């Protein structure tokens, strides 16, 4: 059975009378990579500072590594078993070696011990031979790797990463992401990672908590969050392209029919007739056809005209006017194969199971 290392219940925090965090409850198991995802200002950094015991919550309970983390006598010891990496790499005006050694010096480790550990960790982050460099002369990506090395050299059981790649170029970001996975694998370190980047969350996290306006609105696997967001706000944040308000006009055996201003959509949901709902589906779940195909209850078919084509990386976002503007995502090569162009009439299909329905109430 997995061991719970962090258990938060109803944590709250205010600054100057303003609620920053409200009713935060979740638990994290040893060895997990838990992603905290939310836009800037949603309270991610504050929550991480509460969890790393750098600030006190206004209310709630917090247990870390089996101990009451809000009791003043356990906070220092617990803090010594955890580490934090900030968004902006914090670099001291010292050598790379001294930067990395700092936490070990605080713990009064022997010089030989420090030397061995720093040497090892320089190897892990791929900066062998950098020990004597003045840390401030490093590039942003290197500096963040040194900061990461400084946090892991003390072998923390829990590592907090607060937007660790938000300031970095794509190459350095990839490097840090690889290191995070490696640290988690090698040392079974529990990692709590905050990010505003859904894709990074998906790449790294085993579970994700979506935080919006100081509240955790949903916790689940990336798949659950991507395809079954609990609220329309989460859907918009995780980039669900197609969101339409509608009304359920029929409900039978867990299948519903929804009227979106004249566009009739079949979906799988347990909601009764008359409910106001939001209908969501991802652009990649929309398939484009050049000829009419047969409609079934398991498949929604619409006819429309291509309104615009927006290239995004190796994909093309195709906006099709079917009464409502529907966003479809296809690869550039299939767009070329299909000969998609402005004004072209097409049919689109969306599986009923790919349509996610959120009740308004």
């Amino acid at each position, binding site marked *: 059975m997995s061991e719970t290392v962090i258990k938060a219940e109803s944590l709250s925090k205010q600054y100057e009378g303003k609620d920053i965090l409200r009713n935060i409850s979740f638990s994290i198991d040893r060895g997990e990579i838990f992603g905290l995802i939310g836009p800037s200002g949603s309270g991610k950094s504050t929550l991480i*500072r509460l969890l*790393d015991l*750098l600030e006190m919550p206004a209310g709630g309970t917090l247990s870390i590594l089996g101990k009451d983390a809000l009791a003043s006598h356990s906070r*220092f010891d617990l*803090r*010594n078993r*955890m*580490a*934090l990496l*900030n968004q*902006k790499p*914090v670099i*001291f*005006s*010292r*050598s790379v*070696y*001294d930067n990395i050694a*700092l*936490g070990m010096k*605080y*713990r009064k480790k022997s010089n030989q011990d420090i030397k061995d550990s720093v040497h090892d960790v320089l190897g892990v982050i791929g900066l062998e031979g950098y*020990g*004597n460099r*003045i840390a401030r002369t490093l590039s942003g990506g290197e500096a963040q790797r040194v*900061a990461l090395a*400084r*946090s892991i050299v*003390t072998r923390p059981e829990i590592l907090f990463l607060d937007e660790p790649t938000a300031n970095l170029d794509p190459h350095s970001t990839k490097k840090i992401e690889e290191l995070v996975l490696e640290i988690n694998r090698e040392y079974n370190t529990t990692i709590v990672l905050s990010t505003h980047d859904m894709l990074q969350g998906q790449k790294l996290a085993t579970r994700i908590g979506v935080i919006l306006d100081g509240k955790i609105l949903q916790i689940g696997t990336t798949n659950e969050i991507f395809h079954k967001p609990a609220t329309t706000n989460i859907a918009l944040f995780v980039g669900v392209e197609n969101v339409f308000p509608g009304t359920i006009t029929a409900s039978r055996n867990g299948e519903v029919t929804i009227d979106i201003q004249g566009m009739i959509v079949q979906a799988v949901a347990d909601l009764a007739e008359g409910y106001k709902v939001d209908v969501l589906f991802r652009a990649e779940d929309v398939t484009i056809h050049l000829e009419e195909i047969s409609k079934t209850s398991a498949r929604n078919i619409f006819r429309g005209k291509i309104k615009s084509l927006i290239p995004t990386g190796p994909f093309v976002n195709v906006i099709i006017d079917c009464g409502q503007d529907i966003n479809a995502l296809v690869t550039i090569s299939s767009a070329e194969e299909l000969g998609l162009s402005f004004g072209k009439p097409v049919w689109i299909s969306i599986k009923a199971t790919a349509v996610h329905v959120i009740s308004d109430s």
Partner: protein
Amino acid sequence: MVSEIISGFLQAINLIITLNPEILRITLLSLEISLSSTFLSALLSIPLGSIIYYHEFFGKRFIINMVQTLYALPTVLAGLLLFLLLSNAGPLGFLGLLFTPQGMILAQMILVMPLITGFTISALSGVDRDMKIIVTSLGATKLQSIFTLIREVRFAILAAVILGFGRAISEVGAAMIIGGNIRGVFNYSGTRVLTTAISLETSQGDFALAIALGIILLGVAVLVNFGLNLVQEGSVWKSYTSS
């Protein structure tokens, strides 16, 4: 007057080159007093500034404002206040420090301590909030955290020490009132320092001596600043090579 300045200048250079014993004595005493006062001030003010910075207490803002006001404390006023304390009838008269180099060191400390204390506080306040958070998260005790941050702002603090030395060696008001500008003879050092001597020689019309002392005063300032800059660069260099 112009010729007087030129001849004074030439005589001054002659006095310096020939290591005039009177000038040597005055210069050494000046250095001794001002280096002592700066060193002792640093020793007290850096911890004092750190303590004020690290603790939240009622009236903290007021104390910081007072410390900063004292940057501009007129030297004669510091001299006067200390004179009242140290004079025979004063509360500290029993110490017998009036008209002694020790008394002058005390006077200069009153002038230098606010500078170093205040600059230590502002240097520490200027440290990035994220850095303070990281130091705590790395497991530093309160003391370790203070030492780490002081080390981080060491150049700003060193600059304050240099500034403090500059104020100490260049002030004349307190040195005159507390020291009394007593000429040294034989083994007795006296209390005549560069600034008080310049003041005296100028009023007596002995411009050559005054100019010579002025050149030395500037020279000393230059040398000390160079020395401290070397220390600064040395520590930069050390952080390059230490491992």
